């Protein structure tokens, strides 16, 4: 006897009535690809997730519907995860910006005071 389901699709499968609890043999893992998505030309590509696939071509056709079926999209980039060079958060302090680097900020240049002083001294 096979499993009778309320779902006709499943009844057609002819599944065994008694469950099988054995682990799946020979698990095959495809690798992962990172997906970057561009909403419209002129925008940047933004990382939106990853897919499992055996190669770039397959990754692309699989990513297209998972990441562009709802959102507006004009282009996808697909990058093999292992090709992404990641920095470590242990190095977070390396990215801190020190206040004294005002010489490269717009706010580091305030000349109005000097101009006003000059005008005051030279006006009669």
């Amino acid at each position, binding site marked *: 006897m096979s499993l009778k389901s*309320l*779902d006709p*699709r499943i009844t057609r499968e002819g599944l065994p009535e008694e469950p*099988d*609890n054995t682990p*799946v043999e020979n698990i*095959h893992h495809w690798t*992962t690809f990172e997906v970057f998505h561009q909403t419209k030309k002129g925008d940047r590509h933004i990382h939106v997730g990853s897919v499992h696939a055996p*190669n770039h071509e397959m990754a692309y056709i699989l990513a297209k519907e998972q990441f562009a079926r709802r959102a507006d999209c004009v282009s996808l980039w697909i990058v093999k995860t*292992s090709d992404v060079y990641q920095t470590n958060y242990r190095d977070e302090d390396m990215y801190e910006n020190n206040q004294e680097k005002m010489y490269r900020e717009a706010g580091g240049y305030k000349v109005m005071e000097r101009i006003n002083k000059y005008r005051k001294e030279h006006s009669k």
Partner: protein
Amino acid sequence: MYGGGYIFEETKNGERTVEDPKRLEDFEARIQAGEKIEPMDWMPAEYRKQLIRMIEQHAHSEIIGALPEGTWITRAPGFRRKLALMAKVQDEVGHAQLLYSAAETLGKPREMMINDLITGKSKYSNVFNYPAVTWADTAVIAWLIDAGAIINQVANSKGSYGPYCRALERICMEESFHLKYGHDNVVFLATGTPKQREMVQDALNRWWKPIMHFFGPSDKISVHTETLMRWKVKMASNDDMRQKFLDMYVPKIWELGLSIPDQKLKKNEDTGIWDYTEPDWEEFKRVINGDGPCNKERLAVRRRAEEKGEWVRKALMRNAEEYTIPLS
């Protein structure tokens, strides 16, 4: 869609990893300050373990959750419903894909999680062990189970683990379509012919119990729970979520003239708290441990799907790269 109250396992004292107190302190301070934790960050072993368990259960709930509604995918009446139901079930599969990725960033490969699902080692939301008996059941599921899921997911999206929050952000967006679709479907049935009305009332009667079970039993207040809340893994109490659900949806059910099969259900105007008949938690435990109306079928179906894909995965392995954990 998803599911439900948090079901965490207590870790036995002997199994607990002793963490470096300084690192633990920094970690907790960062969470306290509202920072997110990313895959490459240091994290306590217990945090990693409980997160894998939670996100994995969530992912399983999406893929198994596609089955009760999928029961009616070949029978949806009319183009509008047929297309919408397909899109909704497709979204659930998409959510599973996003969530498995989020869990993978913590170090457990997808196929291993799926293996744990189909061997019964890993759980999923209890509600999906109940059958969708008629078309109206799919309407009630899409509306009310998804409504419950949104309450849970919105809370979780404010949690501490970056990849999970990002997945939930997109999931919550899609859930709003599910909720609208489900409500629309219930409204058409409730305001339709007497036969349609009867169908939807029957479905609601069937699903009320699983819905009340959905958020899980009252949380035991334990050191364990407190730690998970401090780490922003558990974001709301099961009772609070259930109350919020009742507050938002009971009036919407009543306005359609539908009745809810619980004589005691009433809002206490003084406290603002809903009184209800305590759900049968023995049944809840029984079902979660495998003895529900559809447990066997759900797992057999996922096993078959895996088996059917086996030759495809194997064939394309030939030139494939070695598996890598995704970035986020």
